[in-house]
């Protein structure tokens, strides 16, 4: 029973962190261009090459 007092807040807290992280990424524009993000892995970074 005492374990619950720790576990329930932990469970809720982790969930809330996940929710907050999702909102954060949404505001940061990470979901604005899903198809483009998938393609960007093929893009060579020119500046890296020059260095």
């Amino acid at each position, binding site marked *: 029973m005492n374990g619950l007092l720790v576990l329930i807040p932990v469970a809720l807290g982790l969930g809330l962190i996940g929710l907050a992280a999702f909102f954060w990424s949404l505001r940061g524009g990470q979901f604005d261009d899903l*198809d483009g993000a998938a393609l960007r892995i093929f893009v060579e970074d020119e500046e890296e090459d020059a260095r």
Partner: protein
Amino acid sequence: MTQAASLLVERDFAVPDIRCAGCIAKLEQGLVRDRRIAAARVNFTEKRVHISCTPDAETPELIGAFSLLGFEAHPIGDGPAEVDGGASDSRALLRAVAVAGFAMMNIMLLSVSVWSGASGATRDLFHWLSAAIALPTVAYAGRSFFRSAWRAVRHGRTNMDVPISIGVLIATALSLYETATHGPHAYFDGVVMLLFFLLCGRWLDSVMRDRARGGVTALLRNMGTGAMVAGADETSRWVDATALQPGMVMLVAAGERLSADGVVAGGASRIDLSLLTGESAPQEVSLGDPVHAGTLNVEAPIRVRVTAAGADTAIADIARLMGEAAQGKSRYVRIADRAARYYAPAVHTLALLAFAGWMIVGAGWHHSLLIAVAVLIITCPCALGLAVPAAQIVAAGALMRVGVLVKDGSALERLAEVDRAMIDKTGTLTLGRPVATNLDGADATVRALLLALARASRHPLSEALTRDLTAAGVTPLAVEAIRETPGFGVEAQWEGRMVTLGRPAQPTAHSTLATQLAINGAPAMTVRFADALRPDAADTIAALEQAGVAPGILSGDRAAAVAPVARVLGLTAQTGMSPQDKLAAIARQAAAGHKVLMIGDGLNDGPALAAGHASIAPGSASDAGKNAADCIFLGDRLMPVAQAIRVARRTQAIVRQNFALAIGYNIVAVPLAFMGHVTPLVAAIAMSGSSLIVVGNALRLKGAAR
């Protein structure tokens, strides 16, 4: 550097040709080499490029930077508010989905312990915790349902949101009461799960609309365009279309679209009227002739004195007709709402019956209310709310892969019902651009020379030549000292000889476009151009007929120009029609009980596209046409039209199956709820089970367009 950064201006450009990772790299790395552009960011999904540039960078210069990289760019004006409004709508829905999803998982976590036998103080604690999570969630995630239900009720109507809102509110209130009185059953998990599934459906619907709207915005050409205007001292500057005033003199280059009505004040050329009237042959204009906004200057640069701009142009008249024609379409009631008309009263009656029945039997108001709530929750249109949007978004995704953009879900529903097709000729059955007709007879050197010269020019005929010759696999010959003289043509040195590509020495027969290749002044070849049929037009007509859709031609062009096309395709044709005539033709068919699919591209088709039961426009259509149409198909092939009808019909079949599944589930579950056997556990399983089945069924549409 920081000072420079603060002076930068942010601009958006639509670039429809972004197709692969290579394009992203080319644009982002190529654009910043221009000293005026500080940063460029590609949005692949919306086919847009966002750039930060110095304030002195003018629109044509920026477009030039794009075309240097081989991309066609269209400025997106200051009016993206409408587009962003839609995007923020689905973003708010996504937030609500996330909140409901979070709450659902955590309440489920607590509920599982209750179902596995937690009792006494532990159960009460878990119920209170659930309540603490559920109440804010219902208040936040349920807003859109409550608002829409309230709007409907206030106007004395009912929609899907009314039973949802009542179910959610009563179930929440009762669960709260149960929790306070240490009762065994609380429905917080059911309530939040319901909201989660319904919000998923809503969100899918809104994403679909956004995606299509993004695609259409990217295609719109006229937004924010303008013209080079000659000043008093022969200097010229760029003026936006909205700022054009009567009396200004526009310099219109060959290949440019006019931004305002006017009269020719200098030069002579041919004007392509096909978007305005459907006429395929370009018209000759010279000093003093009137010209209209939206038409294309094909031959030589001209000066045009503006007589009317913006809302006063000839287009405005067509726009007014379109507005009137579109009103008929807004009366269409979507299938989900039609279902809700019967569903909502049925659900309310059932719940009321359950309550009354158990009261009569003598179960007490508390027990009776519990059962009524169980009936409400179990019949809530969870699967129904998901059935339609899930099927439609999968279908729209499948169609997008074959090059058809569907504007919204109701377009698919209406497209599935059509049994007549009215097809415009110029630009719809035909490609709507000049295609060289006598290249096959030319020898290899001539073809290679043609390509070498043509690709150096932006003239419409040169572009047509370049496209046709490149497609035929011709390699250009090496030429030197290429020079273009506007209005005359391109000249260059080839093996010490002077070669020119330009206007033929003798004028050709009226209404034929031609260009001539000359070597050392002696004509070597005259290339003639005509508007060609789309390559698979005949197959598409056959496919339409096979699908039970009777096609016919509705053209604004002269009978003599339409007849050959009608004969080749074996279609009946009505010719020389004004926009009003086209509207009337569709109204006649509609009055005879037919559902008409209008396929057209021009400004003159705009009202007909708006009036048709469903409508499709090619990607090359006028902005008015693209705005009015329900779907847009890209590329030269016409077959996507037939594919779209087939997919729309399959989608309707899947939607009907989904309805059948949802009703079947209710037939099993409602008696159980009536008998009082539905505990929160049973409700949770039944709800998620039926939703998953419906989504799974919708996923079968994924390959429907193949």
